[in-house]
């Protein structure tokens, strides 16, 4: 059998400023989780980073060895996953795991570490943290576990938190609480946040800037509110219009035809063209470049043409 390589991310670039909260939005298969994992070089085999660079301040992360990376992971960049049990060890008490984390990175006594851990549990609004300290992960509810994870993340004062669908497995009421908590923690400690989510409602509550991904590309990037109120890219428009709250109850929803292509079936040109109502011949052949539309940065020929037209008329007027 011939081995094939499939690109999950293509030419993705963005910057995250200190203390900024950004969101990566997309449907399943868009490559948003892989992007999150790539940042801390946590891609499992057979995947690998083929080219490109990821810089934390001035340090290049892609060429670091495992030891240097481990220093970065946790201490500088922490991750929160959809399933808290991915991080929590089911056979150790919550307290033990927290204390272990502190003591593996700093040189303090068990008692001090315990005090810090309990304080952090208190910070994430866990009731009676002394009692929870001695409990096992399975004794806690999903929302409580996610709080413990956030406490664990806070222990080492990271600069960046990458949260991959942190509330997807939770009920709405719990989701609202966790989002609130995440937001206040980032604000209070000046931590930057990369929120990976498929839910535009969640994103609008937390992130200042949003990247919309489709089939391995970033198709639109801009301030969250602008993107939600005035989406430029046809995919973003479709995604927002498909939400039930965008139509009058009882009416048909505005659907996007088809579904996201798999990695192996990615079309040529703009990846969205088979589903795009505005697709032209050009979209089928060429990959659009990022262009600033005045609202957000968009990779779309339609927007590009529109802007060029405006520029031309402007010239004529002058």
């Amino acid at each position, binding site marked *: 059998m011939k081995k094939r390589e499939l690109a999950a991310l293509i030419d993705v670039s963005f910057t995250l400023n200190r203390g900024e909260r950004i969101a990566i939005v997309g*449907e*399943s298969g868009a490559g948003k989780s892989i992007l999150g994992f790539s940042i801390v070089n946590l891609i499992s085999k057979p995947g690998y980073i083929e080219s490109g660079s990821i810089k934390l301040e001035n340090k290049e992360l892609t060429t670091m060895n495992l030891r240097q990376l481990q220093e970065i992971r946790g201490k500088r960049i922490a991750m929160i996953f959809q399933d808290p049990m991915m991080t929590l060890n089911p056979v150790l008490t919550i307290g033990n795991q927290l204390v272990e984390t502190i003591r593996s990175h700093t040189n303090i006594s068990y008692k001090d570490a315990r005090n810090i851990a309990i304080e952090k549990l208190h910070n994430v609004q866990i009731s009676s943290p002394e009692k929870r300290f001695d409990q096992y992960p399975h004794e806690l*509810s*999903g*929302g*409580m576990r996610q709080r413990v994870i956030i406490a664990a993340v806070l222990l080492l004062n990271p600069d960046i938190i990458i949260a991959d669908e942190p509330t997807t497995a939770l*009920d*709405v*009421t*719990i*989701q*609202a*609480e966790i*989002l*609130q908590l995440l937001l206040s923690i980032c604000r209070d400690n000046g931590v930057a946040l990369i929120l990976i989510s*498929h*839910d*535009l*409602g*969640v994103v*609008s*509550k937390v992130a200042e800037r949003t990247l919309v991904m489709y089939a391995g590309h970033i198709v639109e990037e801009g301030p969250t*509110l602008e993107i*939600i109120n005035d989406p430029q890219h046809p995919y973003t428009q*479709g*995604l*927002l219009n*498909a*939400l*039930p*709250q965008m*139509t009058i*109850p*009882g009416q*048909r*929803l*505005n*659907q*996007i*035809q088809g*579904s*996201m292509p798999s990695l192996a079936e990615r079309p040529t040109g703009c990846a969205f063209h088979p589903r795009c109502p505005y697709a032209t011949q050009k979209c089928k052949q060429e990959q659009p470049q990022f262009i600033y539309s005045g609202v957000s940065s968009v990779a779309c020929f339609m927007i590009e043409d529109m802007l060029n037209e405006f520029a031309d008329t402007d010239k004529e007027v002058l």
Partner: protein
Amino acid sequence: MATPLIQISGLEKAFSTNESWLGQWRLRQGKLARHKDSVHALNGVNLTINQGETLCVVGETGCGKSTLARVIMGLTPPSAGEIHYLDQRIDQLNNRQRMFFRRRMQMVFQNPYASLNPRMTVYQTLSEPISFHNPQLSQSSVDEKIDELLESVGISASSSDRYPHEFSGGQRQRISLARALSVEPDFIVADEPLSALDVSVQAQVLNLMMDKQEERNLSYLFITHDLAVVEHFATRVAVMYLGRICELSPTSTLFSSPKHPYTQALLSAIPRLDSNTAQPIRLIGEVPTPTEKPIGCVFQARCPYANQRCYESSPSMTLQSDGSSVACHAIEEGRL
């Protein structure tokens, strides 16, 4: 005037958590006694589903909404209570007697990756119920019917020889719907049919369900936790908490003026796109596991308005002036 299709009264369901017979014996005060541990998933549900309407049941994990669906469909027997289809009681039927109702009531499941048999092609999946319930049909008319069904849910008939794993999640959910429609039911229970799908695909499936409802005058019992979908799709909404219905209202009434304290908290927690919504109401504690049959109001432990009466007696559904029914002592007493 709406005619009731399904009527449910006093429905209860308890799951025993120590199944094995030996494990049920305990020493109590020096005596050996048999004791069954159980979880009470449904604690007296009364509900009517009218012809042609979409009744949405919302609630959080563990509120018993999926159990309700399974009990109605006869996948698990109720511990107490009655279910009527039109004027016939259907909760105590055996497999043979139930066969008639199998054609009238169908179900769409949550996980499109598990609800289709991975070893059966789409053709096999659809032909089984059709030829099973219509043994008089000839092979060619079964084929015709399958093609028709597939086209009607937006799957090309030429792909009927393919296996489920060759389809995307949204397409699989369409095939599931086609299977449910294959016996021409007039009532469909949909247990979180959209929760495993992406937003753009959710819209496709929801549209399809609405089209089918219009075409065939279907009634839906739609179980979900996604309130945005409820607001769009439902005729009436039932809010469930710990195995009981605490509020039942026409959709617009529920969303414009939620009455029950739990409904209020639930609605405030939806992450809306406009950023200027009020802070979500924070509830105390978490949803408990009902190992004992609850005494009093199911919501008392987390309710900010609970008083002594709420701990002692369970509130019953009372009709409000705007057409909603609420089970809450505080509202009854005018405290809220």
